[in-house]
């Protein structure tokens, strides 16, 4: 059996870690090559024309994995509303047409939760609690440490004196955490890299604008899909704030939601006057984040794949909220050009700086 999975943010680090602890050998785990233009081209070529970007990219990943000999594929599945629920069905058909005889193991992201993960592991290696729980714990520790580092990176990028320093450290961090053998090493590396990031030379006069990023989780978290959005924002001196992250999803969705703790409670409550119900995907939360953070952020970037159903609902509702927070909606598909995105970001950041200046001027006047 040769197992593979589609790329998504840093998930390859986690899956590799879990697989190693489960005793899956190097040869049995096919890590798909990093997502590139070739991946996208493959995905676009074989997908239905109107499928959304995450479908096309993950299909591209899976085709590349099959080319490398994978025969068992992990894919996410959801219940209801968003088309994620149909991904595996259609992708299996397409791969079959291409002559790959791969078996899909799906993980339902909206049901089953922790049980689903254990049954996946059982499917792969047979059940063994003494092995499975530490393996999962090890994978999670890598995920949490990467997300902690990522947060520091987002803040450092905005104020570093020499652009690109934080990115280099981040890349290094991913590689060395990926190589870490045990939990203690992961902790040590996390401290080391956060220390290095904090000691990067900073511009003391920098006053970064604070912009939130929200929207559909795949495009928000997968740098290839959003064309390194956060990196580009960092280059423009923007402090990127983001509530969505993989570790947060894991923490709540797998462990705390079943106990009745809802991480989105405040955000959803904030959205209530404008959107009263869950519309699938991350649409409700997107509206909520705009309302909830309207005092805290200078602006919000709302990203979504083209034709994403829940985010279109959010996009229609966002402009009408009483809370006044500038929103830039960016819609991603295979036609999107990076320069176009950068130009729009620049204009947005300029606008926010101008807005801040005029507000400060106003406050100064009323002060005297």
């Amino acid at each position, binding site marked *: 059996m040769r197992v593979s999975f589609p790329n998504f943010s840093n998930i390859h680090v986690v899956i590799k870690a879990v697989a190693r602890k489960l005793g899956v050998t190097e040869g049995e785990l096919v890590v798909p090559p990093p997502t590139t233009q070739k991946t996208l081209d493959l995905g676009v070529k074989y997908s*239905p*024309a*109107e*499928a*959304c970007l995450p479908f096309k990219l993950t299909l591209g990943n899976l085709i590349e994995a099959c080319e490398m000999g994978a025969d068992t594929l992990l894919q996410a599945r959801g*219940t*209801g*509303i*968003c*088309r994620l*629920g*149909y991904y595996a*069905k*259609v992708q299996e*058909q397409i791969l079959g*047409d291409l002559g790959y005889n791969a078996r899909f193991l799906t993980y339902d992201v909206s049901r089953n939760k922790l049980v689903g993960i254990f049954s996946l592991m059982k499917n792969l290696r047979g059940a063994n609690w003494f092995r499975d729980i530490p393996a999962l714990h090890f994978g999670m520790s890598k995920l949490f440490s990467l997300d902690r580092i990522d947060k520091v990176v987002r803040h450092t990028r905005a104020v570093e004196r020499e652009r690109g320093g934080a990115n280099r450290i981040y890349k290094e961090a991913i590689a060395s955490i990926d190589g870490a053998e045990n939990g203690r090493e992961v902790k040590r590396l996390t401290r080391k890299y956060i220390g290095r990031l904090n000691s990067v030379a900073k511009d003391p006069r920098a006053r970064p604008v604070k912009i939130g990023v929200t929207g559909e989780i795949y495009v928000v978290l997968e740098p290839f899909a959003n064309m390194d959005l956060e990196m580009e924002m960092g280059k423009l001196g923007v402090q990127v704030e983001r509530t969505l992250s993989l570790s947060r999803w894991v923490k709540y969705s797998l462990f705390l939601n079943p106990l009745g703790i809802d991480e989105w409670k405040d955000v959803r409550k904030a959205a209530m006057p*404008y*959107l*009263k*119900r*869950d*519309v*699938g*995907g991350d*649409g409700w939360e997107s509206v909520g984040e705009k309302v909830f953070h309207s005092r805290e952020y200078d602006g919000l970037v709302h990203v979504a794949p*083209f*034709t*994403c*159903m*829940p985010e*279109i*609902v959010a*996009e*229609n*509702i966002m*402009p*009408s909220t009483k809370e006044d927070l500038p929103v830039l*909606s960016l*819609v991603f598909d295979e036609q999107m050009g990076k320069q176009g995105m950068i130009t729009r970001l620049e204009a947005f950041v300029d606008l926010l700086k101008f807005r801040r200046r005029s507000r400060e001027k106003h406050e100064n006047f009323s002060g005297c």
Partner: protein
Amino acid sequence: MVKVGIPRSLLYYQYYPMWRKFFEELGAETVVSPVTNEAILLSGSSRTASETCLPVKIFVGHVLYLANKCDFMFIPAVRSIGGKIYNCSKFLGLPDITRAVVPESPVILDPEIDLSRGQGNFLKTIYALGNHFTPDRKRIKAALEEARKANLVYRERMVSLKLTAVEVIGEESRNGNVEAEAPLSSCLTIAVLGHPYVLHDDHLNHRLLSRLRTMGVEILTAEMVEQEKLDAAMARLVGKAHWTFESDIIGMGGYCLERGVDGIISASVFGCGPDSMMVSVIRHRARELDVPFLSLSLDEHASEVGIVTRLEAFLDMIGRRKRICV
């Protein structure tokens, strides 16, 4: 009399007779917007985000038309009509989208219909809805029963007489019986897959159904087939349904492929999330069984001539095939 506005769009085609009965029983009058025209489409798309799918833009246009002509606007958020099967995001967000983009709309009645949460929950929703008209719970319940009956009659007529939704609704309003427009010479049977709000909105689909009939084709749409047959065919093809109106496309496609038709035309709207996946499943199956399949993608830029040309070419191809095969 209190007037309830019902936009002639989206779920209107599936549920209008039921809704009308319900509101009439409660002593309210229903006001329906006219058949979609260019002005309605333009006014709707000027308010919504450009990415929004065409039926929702048209829906907003209908709401704008009705805005100053009624006391309430009826826009249910239909989450689920059974099982753990849910509807497309836009149906759920519809009342909220409307509130956001049409601030001048009268009070929006937005009951959340979620049958997956049980009958008790549903009744509570209906009582809350009826409360706008009468505090008398018994009367609301009676109205609900009448509405259910009206819906069954409506469904039954479409299946037994092989009529489309619009024909049955039209027949009721004229109080007379109409036969289905007789095709000139029905030698071809073509299944047309699509949501009712796409197939029956003549402005959106450039009169697809009547055009096919005048071309001498006998058409078959999902509403002409018993729901059980659709569900069974769907179960055989993909297993459990994922979306509420999945049987319109997958069930109908599967049923027709099993029953045998001369060809299948799928009419979907550009950017429709569920359709992009479902049509691909049916296309795949049709290719395996070697059944001609035409997929029409409609948006506000679709030109009538382009559609006619494609239809003619498709029918010519099937005609030639049949002559060779027979």
